[in-house]
């Protein structure tokens, strides 16, 4: 391991997540995927409309909070504290969940988590499960694993349902069907939703009502639910799900068995810490003061709290704690701050790259700025041209993401750092440096000395003779031709600044 930017000996990174299981990688690099997305005018329109709407909503409700910056500072510090004390907090969480009648499972990776959930569902005899929208279960590809075991998973969040019925992939953390417009959603429902009224219109209200009618029957008969968790409180053993539609409440309340899959980084130390995140998350995420429903539960509940009392909600509760590359990210001093993410998606909504390419271009279930750092941190970088190697470059480093992040993750800094890890992984895995690395080294050598740099600058002024009307006389090689494809090149001046200075003022 490199000692310069890699992980010093004292920290040992956990294994990378396997990109063959679940959905942490696409099949082609970002620029190739973006090429297609940029040409899709309907997608572009849907994204521009949706992201500008949510940006305005967020800005309005954040403006209302006088201590917003103090809340961000607190959120950031609580998460740093969590990472520093992660083993103790997870053990505390486990003990408290178990003492309240829950069962805690640990999963090293996606395959193990899928196997645990499949085994638990099989043990109940159920052939179907209802699901609350969950990034963790999308990440591990749980639905596919259950399907392979003959168990049908019903996504119940409206956007997830749209994605599932459309045999599509999610493209946003909060609104997985953000890439779809109402007319497309209407068509998907008309084609794929069992028992749907054929006279369905594309009014959002009508579409939501159709989903209610269809899923109501599913909720009433479901025996097993699978959820994620927004937060888990170590000192009480309390789990939290933040949602809007009530599908979460249905899943967390009606079935007999509840299985929650949660990344190990989602723990918070105390009940009082939730006060910070329950203020930061809804305003950053849906742009609401508070989302319609937040549910918290602690193990298994009865009405009077006694073991044989009238049941209130599931009487069997399993919590699956998932690593899947998180301990790899945790070993990276800067990278571990990406684990602070509370999945609000504010960074996606303000990202000028995401706004134009949408989420599918990132390949992973985690798109946008946070995805461009979290995904390669979980899966590792090969140093070659694997799809995830392209992600840290999918940003203009404009910094809008950092400004809105409720837990102040320095995303531009992380992107820059991952780029360095990528080029260094290339150096380690290839005998010959890349053309780019060679060019960079040459530039650095030239620029390390003013004399050499002055000569190079003078040489560059000669290039003015090979640029005609903004285009070079001879075609440029890639990637420089990417510049002249859409932009004129500047004509170099007749004289560099330093030559002008020396000519007019001498060498001082």
């Amino acid at each position: 391991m490199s000692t310069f930017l890699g992980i010093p000996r004292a920290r040992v990174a956990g294994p990378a997540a396997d990109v063959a299981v679940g959905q942490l990688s696409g099949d082609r690099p970002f620029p190739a995927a973006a090429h297609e997305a940029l040409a899709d005018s309907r997608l572009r329109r849907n994204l521009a409309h949706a992201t500008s709407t949510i940006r305005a909503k967020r800005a309005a409700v954040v403006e209302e909070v006088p201590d917003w910056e103090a809340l961000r500072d607190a959120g950031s510090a609580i998460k740093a504290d969590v990472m520093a004390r992660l083993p103790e907090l997870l053990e505390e969480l486990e003990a408290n969940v178990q003492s309240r009648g829950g069962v805690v499972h640990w999963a090293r990776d996606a395959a193990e988590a899928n196997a645990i959930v499949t085994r638990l569902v099989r043990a109940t005899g159920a052939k179907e499960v209802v699901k609350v929208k969950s990034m963790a279960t999308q990440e591990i590809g749980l639905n596919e694993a259950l399907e392979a075991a003959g168990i049908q998973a019903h996504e119940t969040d409206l956007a997830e349902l749209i994605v599932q019925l459309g045999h599509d992939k999610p493209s946003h953390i909060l609104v997985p069907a953000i890439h779809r417009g109402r007319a497309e959603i209407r068509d998907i429902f008309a084609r794929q939703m069992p028992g749907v009224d054929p006279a369905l219109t594309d009014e959002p209200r009508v579409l939501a009502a159709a989903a209610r009618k269809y899923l109501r029957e599913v909720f009433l008969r479901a025996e097993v639910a699978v959820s994620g968790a927004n937060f888990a409180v170590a000192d009480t053993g309390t789990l939290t799900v933040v949602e809007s539609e009530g599908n979460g409440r249905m899943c967390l309340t009606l079935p007999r068995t509840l299985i929650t899959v949660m990344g190990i980084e989602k723990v918070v130390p105390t009940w009082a810490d939730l006060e910070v995140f329950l203020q930061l998350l809804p305003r950053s995420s849906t742009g609401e003061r508070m989302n319609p429903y937040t549910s918290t539960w602690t193990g298994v509940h009865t009405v009077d709290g006694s073991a044989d009392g009238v049941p209130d909600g599931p009487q069997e509760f399993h919590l699956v704690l998932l690593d899947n590359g998180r301990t790899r990210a945790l070993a990276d001093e800067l990278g571990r701050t990406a684990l602070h993410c509370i999945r609000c998606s504010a960074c996606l909504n303000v990202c000028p790259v995401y706004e134009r390419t949408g989420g599918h271009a990132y390949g992973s279930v985690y798109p946008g700025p946070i995805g461009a750092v979290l995904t390669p941190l979980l899966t590792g970088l090969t140093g070659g041209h694997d799809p995830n190697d392209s992600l840290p470059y999918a940003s203009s480093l404009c910094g809008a993401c950092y400004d809105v992040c409720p837990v102040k993750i320095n995303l531009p800094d992380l992107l820059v750092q991952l780029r360095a890890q990528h080029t260094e992984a290339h150096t380690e895995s290839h005998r010959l440096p890349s053309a780019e690395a060679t060019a960079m080294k040459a530039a650095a050598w030239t620029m390390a000395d003013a004399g050499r740099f002055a000569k190079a600058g003078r040489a560059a002024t000669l290039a003015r003779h090979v640029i005609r009307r903004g285009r070079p006389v001879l075609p440029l090689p890639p990637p420089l031709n990417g510049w002249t494809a859409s932009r004129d090149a500047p004509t170099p001046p007749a004289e560099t600044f330093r030559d002008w200075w020396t000519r007019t003022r001498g060498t001082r």
Partner: protein
Amino acid sequence: MTAREEVLGRIRSALGDRPAAPPIPRECLRGGVHSPGSPELALQLVDRLEDYRATVVRVGAADDGDIGRAVGDALASREIGQAVTPRGTPREWTGWLADVVVDEGQLSARDLDAIPAVVTGAVVAIAETGTIVLDGGPLCGRRAITLVPDTHVCVVRARDIVQTVPEALARLDPQRPLTFVSGPSATSDIELDRVEGVHGPRTLVVVVVG
């Protein structure tokens, strides 16, 4: 090695640099400007509830009969004559209804699906966010009853209205199953256009008392 031992071991190895747990700045405002039960908070709660498309009815005196009349009117205007209610609500609250089902835990989800409304109290309300909190106790009932019926009438007493989220959390017992409700169920999943009414109660009526 078990998965548990291995994952915990990996975490400890990843934290080989023993990062210091940073001090947590708590400068954020925890308490509100107004004390619980003050008229300003009732006004703010009403404003925020209405902003998220809940219906609000105000009842001046904390008399259970008056509350019952308000509940009855709210349901009658929606042509609802039947409601479920938990054991701990005052009987007067549902006194104006033709058909009241008291939940003793005997109702299945399908039974509840056939009942059009539910009448409960709340343990805390948060003015700034327009939130009512249910705790599964005698006044709020088990979670299913406030979820499956399509109309939820919730009685909030002024003394239970706090200004901020931290004040509410401090009053709540995390060992209870808690549901924070801010308006009727809603979705913004289609073009970020907010639509009220999905799987949870599509109508939320909050009776603010005092």
